[in-house]
């Protein structure tokens, strides 16, 4: 199992040898703070009832993988999801639609116990 690494400068989410283009921030209280996060692999939310901000506009899939800070923070509600509708997020990691499909395919093809349980966010 390998954890995720999100580099805010290069706007890249890395999972093992694979890299996915992603952004954070643009709205609200700003980008995801640097640090270590736990990936809530058992609390993933999927379905058309989700907001359009969580939609992969190429496939129509909507999903949200919650992540919670492993450090004290006044902020919350973070997750990894496709960056749907207007570009930008309120602090989540938003995967570009062109990359969200391959990330999600890999996520689905990875057994629950082998999915990443952590994400490191670097400046």
């Amino acid at each position: 199992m390998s954890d995720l690494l999100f580099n805010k400068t290069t706007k890249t989410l890395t999972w093992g040898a694979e890299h996915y283009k992603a952004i954070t921030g643009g709205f609200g209280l700003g980008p995801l703070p640097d640090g270590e996060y736990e990936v809530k692999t058992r609390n993933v939310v999927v379905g058309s009832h989700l907001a359009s901000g969580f939609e992969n506009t190429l496939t129509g899939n909507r999903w949200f993988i919650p992540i919670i800070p492993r450090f004290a923070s006044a902020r919350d509600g973070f997750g990894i999801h496709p960056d749907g509708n207007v570009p930008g997020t309120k602090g989540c990691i938003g995967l570009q639609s062109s990359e969200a499909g391959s990330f999600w395919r890999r996520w689905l093809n990875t057994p629950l116990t082998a999915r990443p349980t952590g994400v490191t966010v670097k400046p």
Partner: protein
Amino acid sequence: MKAFALLLGVFTISACANTAAPPLNQYLYNLSQNPKDLSQQYQACLLLGELSLSEKLVAKITKHQEKETGSFSCNTYLLAKQNYDITSLNRFVNAFPRGAKQSSLWRRHAESGYLLGVLPASFKLLSQVAIQDNNALDTLVSGIAFADGGHGEALIEVIAKIHARMPARVNQSFKRMNIKSRDADIIYNLSTHMKGKL
């Protein structure tokens, strides 16, 4: 013959189990009143809201709610969801926390594993009422600056949906609730984006 005896046994046990166990809505209500922790209480309440409750149970909830002092509670939510009448809905909207105080609702929802979606069921109900009720709309709008991350994205979506159909009403609410232009702009952009898809 052995199979018949086994089937008979299963039916007998099931029948016993059914008579011994309380109905699901009663079971969940008991759980919501005597939970192991706050997450269990929240989950039981949320699931109850999705069920059609018996008249007996609604009467019980009403009695309990009357003893509460106007604070936002599971009973307030359940009665609004079940009765969907002006009295229950007004009580629900008036008790619903505003602004930064909504953070605890979002936190509880996240800690409970985002049961039934990213947007908590109570916010979903509030947004339905907000379509015709300015007090509910103001309460919904009051949380814009405080809902963070995916919570914020879920909240602005429901407000933008109302704005796409009733821009004047939402703009007036923004004025009443002193929403900063930066936060309002996000709604305008999203609303415009949605109008293109209406």
